[in-house]
């Protein structure tokens, strides 16, 4: 996509919500500012809200998940499983921990003939790099349900008997082994806090704050109010304690573990450690030996709504295998398409896309010499529209240039039957213009639903070689819909950057 020149980006109005009410305000859109990267989109990425008459970008749409599925095996996953098992495929889809390629399940001993039924043990192998689950000593009995087998193989690991000779630790009442892994420590801490908080909440003063009159605790207190017996000694609260034993989740720093890590790093060298970007996938592992296959993440199909009025903008079909949409209001069918090409380059019969198409013919700008380009606006609407263009006189960004639109206000015809144009051309009328010298105030060329106007670009003297000139163009479109003038505030910033500058 937008890798080819010239390209067009559209600025979503959500960058500055006050803009629609104050179109006259001073701060013009600056495509070279770093913030612009967050509000510029190719036309294909934009939707259109027919209620608000506004372009809607991913930032100003609210999304609803239609279904969850695994991108690797294309099976749908119900939402309850997503909640309980987490965002991962529960079947056999795993990715390589080294290169993130999807892993294949293969038998350890390949069968001699294809007719033979596959017998275990099975391993996960990466078809891209040479990693296999044998590297971490992992084999499976069955070729399916790898997730279940993996979680089964994980369980016996922590029970490796590391007997702590410390008598103080054995004093801890729980017979459970001390938590070792991160998960175990977390579970122990969670249980510890739960216990502590429950203990404290049972305090009688709190019971009243919670209005729990039905609690036997409160009743015993109420009864005590009237009893004439000896006053109950008011007891001090038991202060909440901290985790004191490893069973509570207390892990003391062990200098030996750090020494071990250093020794392993020294022994394994560069190849022994996992790369930084993979550490993001399973954060715990530092060494290649600790890498475990990564379950592939699920994907979703999402419906999109306008954030302002909740209108449904796009809704895909819930079936995984189709890519069709039930509803999809794309911006391309509601907003004029803006394209740019050098004057003299072959005119296209219909300006279909603002993206691509020129390839190698992209000209270089010469400092201080005017170059001419044709800015084409194509109207997708079934009504004629009035277009007003505006641009800043001097561009910002790495290449400085003076930009003049020779004809800033014109009308673009309706998107009528394609035959009209074909017949008109046969009659000899054709698209007018396309010859002579560019003239101020005159449309350069015109077709059924498109108009081309000439833009003059004069680069400054100190142009930088190899940089791209980006021209911000403010496009205002007015059209009559159902009799009354609609879209007085309709606005898009079409923003094209077409040109290599050679200094």
């Amino acid at each position, binding site marked *: *996509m937008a890798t080819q020149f010239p390209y067009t*980006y559209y600025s979503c109005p959500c960058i500055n*919500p006050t803009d629609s009410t104050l179109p006259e305000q001073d701060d013009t859109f600056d495509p070279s500012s*770093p913030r612009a990267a*967050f509000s510029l*989109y190719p036309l*294909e*990425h934009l939707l259109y809200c027919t209620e608000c008459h506004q372009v809607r970008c991913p*930032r*100003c749409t609210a999304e*609803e*998940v239609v279904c*969850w599925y695994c991108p690797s095996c294309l099976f749908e996953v119900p939402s309850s499983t*997503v909640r309980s098992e*987490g*965002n991962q495929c529960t079947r056999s889809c795993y990715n390589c921990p080294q290169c993130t390629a999807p892993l294949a399940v293969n038998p350890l001993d390949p069968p001699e003939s294809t007719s033979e039924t596959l017998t275990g043990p099975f391993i996960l192998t990466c078809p891209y790099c040479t990693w296999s689950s044998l590297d971490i000593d992992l084999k499976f009995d069955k070729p399916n349900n790898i997730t279940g087998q993996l979680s089964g193989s994980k369980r016996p690991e922590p029970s490796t008997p590391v007997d702590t000779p410390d008598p*103080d630790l054995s004093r801890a009442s729980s017979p459970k082994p001390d938590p070792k892994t991160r998960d175990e*420590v*977390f579970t122990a*801490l*969670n249980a*510890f*806090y739960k216990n502590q*908080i*429950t203990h*404290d909440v*049972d*305090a*009688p003063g*709190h019971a009243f704050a*919670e*209005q*729990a009159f039905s609690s*036997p*605790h409160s009743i*015993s207190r109420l009864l005590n109010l009237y009893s004439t017996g000896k006053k109950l000694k008011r*007891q*001090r*609260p*038991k*202060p*909440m*304690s*901290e985790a*004191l034993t490893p069973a509570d*989740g*207390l*892990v*003391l*720093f*062990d*200098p030996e573990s750090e*020494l071990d890590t*250093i020794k392993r*790093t020294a022994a394994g*060298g*560069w190849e022994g450690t996992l790369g*930084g970007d993979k550490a*993001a996938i399973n*954060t715990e592992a530092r060494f290649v030996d600790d890498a475990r296959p990564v379950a592939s993440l699920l994907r979703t199909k999402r419906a999109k709504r306008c954030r302002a009025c909740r209108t449904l903008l796009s809704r895909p079909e819930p079936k995984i295998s189709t890519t069709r949409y039930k509803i999809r209001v794309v911006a391309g069918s509601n907003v004029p398409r803006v394209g740019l090409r050098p004057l003299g380059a072959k005119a296209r019969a219909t300006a279909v896309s603002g993206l691509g198409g020129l390839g190698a013919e992209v000209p270089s700008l010469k400092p201080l010499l005017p170059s001419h380009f044709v800015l084409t606006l194509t109207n997708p609407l079934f009504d004629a529209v009035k277009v007003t263009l505006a641009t800043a006189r001097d561009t910002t960004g790495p290449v400085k240039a003076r930009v003049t639109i020779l004809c800033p206000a014109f009308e673009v015809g309706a998107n009528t039957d394609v035959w009209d144009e074909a017949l008109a051309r046969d009659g000899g009328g054709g698209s007018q213009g396309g010859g002579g010298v560019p003239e101020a105030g005159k449309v350069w060329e015109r077709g059924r639903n498109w108009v081309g106007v000439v833009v003059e670009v004069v680069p400054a003297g100190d142009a930088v070689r190899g940089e791209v000139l980006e021209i911000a163009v403010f496009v205002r479109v007015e059209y009559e819909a159902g009799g009354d003038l609609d879209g007085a505030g309709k606005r898009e910033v079409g923003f094209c950057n077409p040109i290599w500058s050679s200094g």
Partner: protein
Amino acid sequence: MASTPSYDVRKSTLSRLRPSTAAGQQLGSLPSPHTPLSRSISGLYGSPAGGYRSEEENLLVFELGSRCMQAGFAGESSPRCSTKYSPDLERRVGDYRRWAIDYEPPHRPLGSGETWGWDHELWRMDIRDLDLGLVEDKVERLVREAELKYFLLDNRTRRVALVVPSSLPKPLLSVLLGGVFNGVQAQTITLLPTAVMATTAAGLRSALVIDIGWEETTATAVYEYREVHQRHSVRAGKALSEEFGTLLHQELRNVTAAAGDVSEDEFTFEEIEEVMTRIGWCRCGAGPEGHGKEIKIPFPTSHYPNTLDVSFDRLSDPAELALFAPEAAEHDLDDHNLPLPLLTYDTLLHLPVDVRRVCMSRIIITGGVSKLPGIKRRLLADLEALIDKRGWTPVRNYGSTKKDPRSLSHPSTAKSAPISYSAIPDDDGTLSNSESNMDREFDPIMRKISQLHMKHSPPPVEGVIRAVESLGAWAGASLVVNNRVRGVVEIERERFLQHGLAGASAAKKDVSVVPQRQSMGPGVRGVSGAAGERGSWGLGVWA
């Protein structure tokens, strides 16, 4: 739509409201049998289902640092995603050049000192020349991508707990909140301070949290879940990675013939950081440990030989220079660039004696750089050496007196205590006779009271240097949210989008945090009744 009111509009008039330590817990407890009230009853006629309400909510926990974001669901032990910020995130939508075969990443100058790795930072604490709108855009995109890729949330209400340092400037805080509110469409955001959450994740109530982050190292003393003292030093990840850059460039110059041709930024920031995180380490004691091994580091895109041989010992030098600075004379050090052991020592020294006694045996070393192997061991060893040398007297030089006058009156306590890593103190339960108790008289009454208090539990470890591992601030927040503890600062979406941070005082001026404070003591599950509705909110420690 995306932008929230600017900070100027939101300027808060709220006075600084640190929760006072006097928020006592004077509730009695009766040892009679009773039904546990672990579920709260939402009203007189209500069903007790109110306590399970959060099952229907998406409880998310975000930890935002200046370099990376960790995010996940509350109640899980590790975050679902931890994203490092990189300039790639700033590319425009639909710009797929990065995946083209002949793509060459644009050359980015490395910078030095303050500007080192600027384009890899989400924000800086120095917000004078920071484009706050841009930070908000970045945060929003990070958060939205985390949701798209890792959370896949359904339509249930989303509540977010945001873990941020308590020293975060308010304009930045406002921008972060705006980014998260817009990014995940959260209903409420609870702010939780990083240091306290790291303490919680270690199972402690008080600790000295050494957070070695990217931009700065903070040493925060947390006492009974309250931050009581904080010190900063710029010796942190940024300085460390710059030292690694210098090391790699030096090594390259050593092996290439035309040493003069090697430019200052031959390696990219990403390559340098990968070397740092993969094979960087930290030695203990000043001398090299004599592993004597050469590590071959591949640089596939280098203009020079594609592998660089660096001796393993050499790879511990950057940490030495950047974080510990053993050669630096003390008079050369400024308050903002203290070496880490000195920073830790200074923080402990400036604590009240009682707090110091508790904190020194609960040192938590956390933050990204704490994953550098050997750094914890080194930091503790240096700290012990410092305490041995100086004791707990803030005076470094007695001038003509030549001697610490107090050491004359307490000759027996001048000796340092044996350092132990054990969890349980001496068998008879007496406190170790350490330097921290030097100026404390033996108080039999206090001791008896504390023994009565702790009748059933072993006495806490105090007065010895001891480090405790923490699961990290993210896991702490996950624990806290999972146990339905309400934070002091809870910000509602509508109010924030309307008033911004100024809404903190819009409802009621000078609202005190103390009555709202529901720390880990009794009443933390105030999900119903009066505690459930908040007429006004304050900013707590962030005010």
